[in-house]
């Protein structure tokens, strides 16, 4: 009888331990799933939050995104045709960043770095090449200090009230950005229309509002998004070419069709290094459109 009782006890203990183990394992797994879901939801919410941030009718927009804990925003960029930004967020658990599912965004151009923070500063500016192509969204948690910035840049930053970009008044934590000199971590040369940004001796060429992307974002993300924008500018040129045909059929004469075809072919397979050369063609194209606009026409 004693032997049976012992066997009984051992059997119950083994089975109990197994059930207990399964229960603990289940709870841990569920916790991980919940956390994964939470991070995925955060990434999705972040993409939704950037919708009203797109400048649209306004020239620029600024907003702040706060997280309850230290968060990292991971941004994978793919430049195939329209390309995409895959956004995921992570919070730190036991010293490790636990990421949720990536949310793919095809119609936005998000420039960010992988630095973590609990508060992110985001602003958007339109990208015109020479017509409006898209809105650029710049997200950053780091603090920058612009030393001797060009007048237009200074006015823009002060006008928007971007809290993580200081002008001339630098603190120790700030990443220093020098304009037309090479004494800082980041150095900018050129003018507001075009130029290049130098980070650790590596250059990123910019035109117009892409300057912010070249300064704030990681080089890989900047170049990938620039490539995506060039491709999209080419597709819009194609649409404008077809629009020119429709306008001509209604008796509104436009001579931009040939120029648009040429513009589209110059954009094909171009990279961020070609931006400055392309900008010259864009300026000429814009001048021609402005002339037509004066006569009541114009494509854009």
């Amino acid at each position, binding site marked *: 009888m004693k*032997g049976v*009782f012992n066997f009984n006890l051992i059997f119950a203990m083994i089975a109990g331990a197994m059930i207990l183990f399964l229960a603990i394992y289940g709870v841990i797994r569920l916790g991980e799933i919940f956390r994964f879901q939470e991070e995925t*939801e955060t990434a999705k919410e972040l993409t939704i939050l950037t919708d009203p941030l797109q400048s649209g009718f306004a020239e620029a927009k600024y907003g702040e995104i706060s997280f309850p804990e230290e968060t990292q925003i991971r941004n994978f960029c793919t430049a195939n045709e329209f390309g995409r930004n895959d956004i995921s967020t992570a919070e730190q658990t036991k010293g490790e960043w636990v990421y949720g599912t990536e949310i793919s965004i*095809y*119609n936005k151009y998000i420039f960010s770095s992988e630095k973590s923070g609990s508060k992110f500063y985001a602003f958007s500016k339109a990208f015109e090449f020479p017509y409006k192509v898209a809105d650029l969204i710049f997200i950053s948690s780091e603090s920058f200090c612009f030393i001797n910035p060009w007048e237009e840049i200074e006015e823009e930053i002060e006008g928007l009230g971007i809290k993580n970009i200081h002008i001339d008044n630098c603190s120790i934590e700030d990443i220093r950005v020098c304009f037309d000199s090479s004494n800082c971590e980041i150095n900018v040369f050129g003018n507001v229309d075009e130029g290049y940004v130098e980070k650790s001796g590596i250059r990123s060429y910019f035109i117009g509002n892409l300057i912010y992307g070249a300064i704030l974002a990681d080089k890989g993300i900047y170049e990938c998004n620039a490539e995506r924008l060039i491709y999209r500018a080419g597709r*819009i040129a194609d649409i404008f070419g077809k629009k020119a045909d*429709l306008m001509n059929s*209604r*008796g509104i004469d436009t001579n931009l069709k040939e120029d648009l075809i040429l513009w589209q072919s110059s954009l094909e397979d171009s990279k961020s290094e070609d931006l400055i050369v392309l900008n010259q063609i864009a300026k000429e194209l814009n001048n021609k459109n402005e002339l037509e606009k004066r006569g009541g026409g114009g494509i854009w």
Partner: protein
Amino acid sequence: MVMILSFLEKKKFSRSKKNYNNKSFGFHNKGDIRIQQTAFMILAVFFFFVLVGLFFLGYYSKNLKARTHELEKEQTIASLQTLIDMAELSYDATGYEYLSLDEDKILIMSVEDYSTIWPVSSIKIYKVFPAFDKLVKCPNPGCNYYVVYDSGQEEIEEYSTFISLCRKNKEFGSIYDKCEIAKLSAGVENVE
């Protein structure tokens, strides 16, 4: 089967009459019964937790679906403004048009493949005036709606906003912006 039965007969689980009448089915003592009781109890507890887990998972997945739909809906509503601002659709003759779409671009976009870039499941533009009895897809004579994009998903919930649908026109030698009222409708897949 025959082999198993013959094996049982050789062992203690004999199917002889003798073993059916007493202490039932080969349980020789209280210890055996206790083991069976404990085993059944553990199994019952296990199945109970499995059922609770299944119930919880069902509830959780229902919640997750609702949350997904809620986020998609939020995104679609936010996307309406994004769509209006997109260079592929917007009308920007003087730079001051607000909530205006370009009818020429829409006509072109209804045949262009831009499927990867749209943040919604469907984009349709309905002309509002003059009132119509039946829908005629553009570009057909007397048409009243454009389909810019349709993902082909079946259960689509549509959200819409009124916009101006404009294009440049020439009459009596002068060029002007001809605008009419229309409705931009963006669809989101209904996952509920």
